[in-house]
């Protein structure tokens, strides 16, 4: 869950990391009511990278310029999205721009601190220095300091970075953040550090103990198209895609494998819909409702290789759903896994064909789309 810059900066400030004092506006003319000394920076609040390069940050030297800039920014799209809000901040004079981040590294199975002595929009051109410490309790300021000895020549600055890195470790555990990226981290003329931008990714799995994450999941779900929102609300994992073949699947790996196989035929999947988090009658019902209502979807492939999901139970549910279902879109089944012998019996009795392989099922659903 990527937070907006403003939300991220609020979290930094709440934990003792200095940020510019900013205000959010929704309309250009709100600029004039802000108590703000000029020049200011106006920054679109969209959750996508490369905003600076795309012109999403503008400088204004007075209220008139600011209102014009705000109007302009609110009308454009960034990363395929139009910003709902702008962040208005003092334009801060600074002597250097650094990059400081914390993220999770799968290979070491824990956290790492990232540092680059030159931050800003072009940070991708350099490989940041990496201090991998794993568990928060294993963070050692002296180990980071030694690493920075070769990365940062300014002794006093290095000490400030070490202090801020420790603060990031505390923050990451307190708010269940899996990425905190401060870029640029500005060095002010007096040597102090100021976070000019903030990209914080929260761990959605921690929603049970972080109410604000739960609320943000709810809000972001509501921003999805109605069908996707409904599936997500039903605890199904759904990603809307642009194709013709609706895919009801179980498990991330097999869902992707089926998508890839569909794509290999020249058709495209209409969605990534993984029912494994809610393999219940209500869950599958919802999945069919979503795909039946989607006009782009011409036929549906049900592809499940169940382990923890017992496919004999799924087969019974499919039978019930098929009997009540009104849509005439063709449905092709390929189900295998735990309970497959009983599942075959159920399917046979219901007069439903269960394809033996994913290949045959994909061929069948592709033929149905092409015929439809």
């Amino acid at each position: 869950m990527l937070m907006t810059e403003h939300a991220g900066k609020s979290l930094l400030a709440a934990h003792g990391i200095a940020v510019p004092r900013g205000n959010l506006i929704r309309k250009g003319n709100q600029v004039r009511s802000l108590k703000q000394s000029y020049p200011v920076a106006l920054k679109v609040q969209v959750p996508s990278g490369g905003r600076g390069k795309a012109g999403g940050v503008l400088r204004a030297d007075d209220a008139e310029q600011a209102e014009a800039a705000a109007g302009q920014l609110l009308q454009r799209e960034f990363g395929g999205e139009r910003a709902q809000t702008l962040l208005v901040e003092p334009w801060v004079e600074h002597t250097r721009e650094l990059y400081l981040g914390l993220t999770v590294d799968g290979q070491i199975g824990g956290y790492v601190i990232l540092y680059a002595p030159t931050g800003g929009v072009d940070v991708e051109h350099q490989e940041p220095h990496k201090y991998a410490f794993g568990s928060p309790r294993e963070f050692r300021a002296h180990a980071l300091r030694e690493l920075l000895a070769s990365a940062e020549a300014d002794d006093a600055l290095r000490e400030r970075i070490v202090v801020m890195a420790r603060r990031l470790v505390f923050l990451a555990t307190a708010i269940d953040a899996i990425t905190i990226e401060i870029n640029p981290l500005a060095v002010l003329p007096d040597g102090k550090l100021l976070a000019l931008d903030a990209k914080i990714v929260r761990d959605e799995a921690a929603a049970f103990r972080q109410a604000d994450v739960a609320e943000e999941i709810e809000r972001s779900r509501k921003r999805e198209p109605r069908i996707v929102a409904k599936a997500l609300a039903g605890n199904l994992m759904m990603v809307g895609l642009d194709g013709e073949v609706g895919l009801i699947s179980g498990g991330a790996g097999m869902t992707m494998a089926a998508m890839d196989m569909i794509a290999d035929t020249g058709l495209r999947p209409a969605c990534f819909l993984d029912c494994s988090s809610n393999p219940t009658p209500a869950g599958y019902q919802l999945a069919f409702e979503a795909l039946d209502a989607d006009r782009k979807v011409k036929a549906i492939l049900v592809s499940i290789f169940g382990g923890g999901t017992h496919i004999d139970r799924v087969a019974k549910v499919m039978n019930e759903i098929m009997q009540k279902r009104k849509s005439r879109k063709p449905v092709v089944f390929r189900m295998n896994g735990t309970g497959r012998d009983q599942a075959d019996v159920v399917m046979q009795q219901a007069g439903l064909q269960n394809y033996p392989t994913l290949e045959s099922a994909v061929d069948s659903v592709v033929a149905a789309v092409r015929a439809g």
Partner: protein
Amino acid sequence: MSVLVDASSRVLIYGIAGNFGRFSARDIAAYGTKVVAGVAPGRDTREVEGVPVFQNARSACASTDADVALVYVPAPAALDAVLEVLDAGCKVVVYPGDGLPVQDAVEIRAAARRAGAVLVGPNTPGVISPGKAKLGFMPSFCYTPGALGVISRSGSLSYEAGWRLTSAGLGQTSVIGIGGDPVKGLNAGEAIDLLHADAETEAILYLGEIGGADEYAVARYAERDDAKPTAALIVGASAPPGKQMGHAAALVGSKADTQAAKVEALRISGVHVAANLRALVDAAQAALRQRETITT
């Protein structure tokens, strides 16, 4: 030989009184696994499927000499349950549950290492050593004993692959589900080390996907002079960038995350990469044949 679990492993099922626990107790015992104890805190269940049930892992291990744990609890309770079975002395722990906060995953991974134990999971079907023992809920009929060591980030894909291999007569030494989360107990590199050390494993099949860096660990292994022949399938070629594909780690954020980049790295390292699921068995066979070439 097999890795992590075999017919002599004494298995404890934590959360044995729940649906998954009860099913697994029956299912893995039917496969020949020695299920010696269950734990069901806060329940007065004394027995499930003929297995004695205890209030905590310490008394379960003390009474039954259990040394391997299969933990079925919801994510918010996982940290505590895994710490408990580690404290009780279990040296192999499988946590299949999904939705575990990364912070807790980091914690249990570190705790397992401190305890000198191996943690498998989260978000995995578990581990099976065909013909010997099974620690998880993968469908048993998909597997048969043989010479191929399999590692998979995805549960469902590992069943499909196992079923294809078994149907084609390619048996397995062990199939290890490392799970689809970004932080996990056993990761790809560590799982390969186990299979590398296993004398019966003649070739390795790796089932990967977009996102994360596990695939690059596989590539690094394949570059070793003493590497066993390795095959791989990487799914997610059709996944759009910036969208999370089911698994927490399955997301294309950078070029290195893409299926194409991973396939290229693996190919360059000499891995037999299956272009897609259809080509999986052929790739595995190529790896096994390579072994024959080496040994003869």
